[in-house]
């Protein structure tokens, strides 16, 4: 099977896969945090991230904040927002069925998306990146410094979160509240506030994800919707409870999808397989979700859950 192979093309696909993958990983981190600390899968994570990014944009453009000022102010606002949402809307139904929680997060999606469209309209907007937009040529492969910066930020957060959960008391309390709320209460953990903290942290991480993605995908109310799906795939692939898994999953997913989309074509004898079609990119990602959930629900880096009967 003759294959004209350009290593620079392969390298380029890998590099752009790492770039997309970092963005998936950043939102996947938020999903991981919320699941690890509250046991909930938050379908509204993407919309929360989008809304936070708009807040950053407003602060930057309409109120003249300097970029980093807007960035940190947004982190603080989203943290508060996450806490408020948990306390007002999620807490009353935390003990209800899974289904109620799913419906409520769906309601949140509608509200946040609608609100963002109403306040800021659907117009596409630019978002500044804190990183230089120069591109460096390495062996025929163009590497954007912006993507490198994004990757760096995500990595830093992953490490910080890993350390937080592993080494701090609050991190331990968060994990405990999710795993066994009653026992945690017995040992004095304020479970309610731990859950709120979890949502606040996740909202903050989502804001980071949004602000990292926006310079590349540009800001509009739909910007996080596709990313959310890939973020779910990344989080499940890496392990829904593992921050390190989120970045591993994200990068694997980004690179993997690019490679499949470029090379997964076989035309030999009677075998005709073509997985490179653009229509298949999303279904493939979702197929990964299904496959992982069926074969190894804990993902690559998660710990398999043992249910007590």
């Amino acid at each position: 099977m003759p294959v004209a192979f350009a290593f620079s093309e392969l390298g380029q696909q890998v590099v752009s896969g790492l770039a997309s993958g970092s963005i998936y990983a950043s939102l996947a981190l938020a999903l991981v945090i919320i699941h690890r600390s509250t046991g909930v899968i938050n379908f509204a994570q993407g919309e929360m991230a989008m809304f936070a990014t708009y807040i950053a944009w407003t602060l930057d453009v309409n109120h003249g904040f300097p970029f980093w000022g807007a960035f940190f102010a947004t982190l603080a606002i989203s943290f508060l927002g996450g806490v408020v949402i948990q306390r007002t809307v999620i807490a009353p139904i935390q003990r209800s069925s899974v289904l109620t929680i799913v419906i409520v997060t769906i309601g949140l999606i509608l509200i946040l998306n609608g609100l963002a469209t109403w306040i800021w309209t659907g117009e596409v907007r630019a978002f500044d990146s804190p990183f230089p937009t120069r591109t460096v040529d390495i062996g025929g492969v163009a590497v954007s410094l912006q993507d490198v910066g994004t990757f760096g930020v995500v990595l830093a957060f992953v490490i910080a979160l890993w350390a937080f959960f592993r080494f701090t008391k609050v991190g331990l309390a968060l994990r405990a509240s999710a795993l066994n709320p009653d026992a945690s209460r017995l040992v004095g953990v304020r479970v309610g506030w731990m859950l709120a903290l979890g949502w606040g942290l996740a909202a903050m991480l989502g804001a980071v994800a949004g602000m990292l993605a926006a310079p590349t995908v540009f800001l509009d109310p739909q910007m996080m919707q596709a990313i959310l799906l890939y973020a779910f795939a990344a989080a499940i692939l890496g392990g829904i409870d593992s921050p390190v898994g989120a970045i591993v999953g994200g990068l694997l997913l980004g690179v993997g999808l690019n490679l499949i989309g470029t090379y997964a074509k076989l035309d030999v004898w009677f075998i005709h397989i073509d997985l490179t079609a653009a229509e298949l990119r999303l279904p493939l990602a979702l197929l990964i979700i299904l496959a992982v959930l069926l074969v190894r629900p804990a993902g690559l880096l998660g710990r398999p859950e043992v249910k007590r009967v």
Partner: protein
Amino acid sequence: MSQRLPSRTASIVALFVAATAIVLILPGFVSEFRAQQLAYVGIYLIALTGLNILTGYTGQISLGHGAFMAVGAYTTAILISDQGLSIGGHTFANDLKDVWTIPLAALVAGIAGFLFGVPALRLSGLYLALATFAIAVSAPAVFKKFETFTGGGTGINLFGIKGLTGSISGVHVFGHKLAFYDWLYYLSWTIALVLLAVAWFLLRGRIGRAFRAVRDSESAAASSGVSLATYKTLAFAISAAYAGVAGALYAIANTYVNPDTFPITLSIFLLVGVVVGGLGTLSGLIVGAVLVQFLPLWSQEVSKSPGAPAVVYGVILIAIMLALPGGVAGLLRRVRPLARRLYTRPR
């Protein structure tokens, strides 16, 4: 105890007969356009009944029933249109009359549900929700890919095709001429009432008890000899078949299918309809169906500015979830003893 059971059944039967009567005479009182809207309510009722069997009675969450509706819809569309299935250059299974495709749509969708149910045995709770969500999101893309069968992004247009009843000549039923919309209404509501009755029979028998056992405690059910595998896949298959029927009727009513007519929002709204209607009971489902059809329209009445209807819808949704966790059926359950008291003459 044994005294109450027959009278409860009797009142349910009476209610059913009354409902059938209302359904029969209603088109005489409403405009044709409204009849068409009510036909859609009937279609959603069928889908909601199926979803309720799976989610309400067997405890398996599905955010993917829009995909099963799509399977049923495409089955019907392919069979009705002159496209049919072409394998090896031969076209077959085309130009069928639309009503005969409905059982076929149910079958195909039911098989799809079964096929999904097998791997889904290993998933539960939020993971199942996520997996079904993944199916619903990727289904339009998959339908788009198989262009030769599904017509790709352009879809299949059923208008004016001879297989579609009433599209060329009028509709003649038992010697009466019916307008197309009234025909849609009667078609979907007849099927809805029949399927509702079937569900009721199914659920009050052994199968229903097994479903509820699975929902309440899988380990207890398994240790009492209820085969989880059998009943979970059965629940998926039955609910998918119901969704397939709904999808087939949806295709007939819209006279058009394409991948964009089954977005993820459809699956979400179906789940919303079931939860709001009340899980694990059949009584509130009609409210759920009305909600699925009309709430988007009502939200637009409140405000047309961009984004506002979505906010209205989301707020109403959350409010209902917070106020009525048991859905409308839960509300009815609380109302029933009150109503009974109104009718009891003090002895």
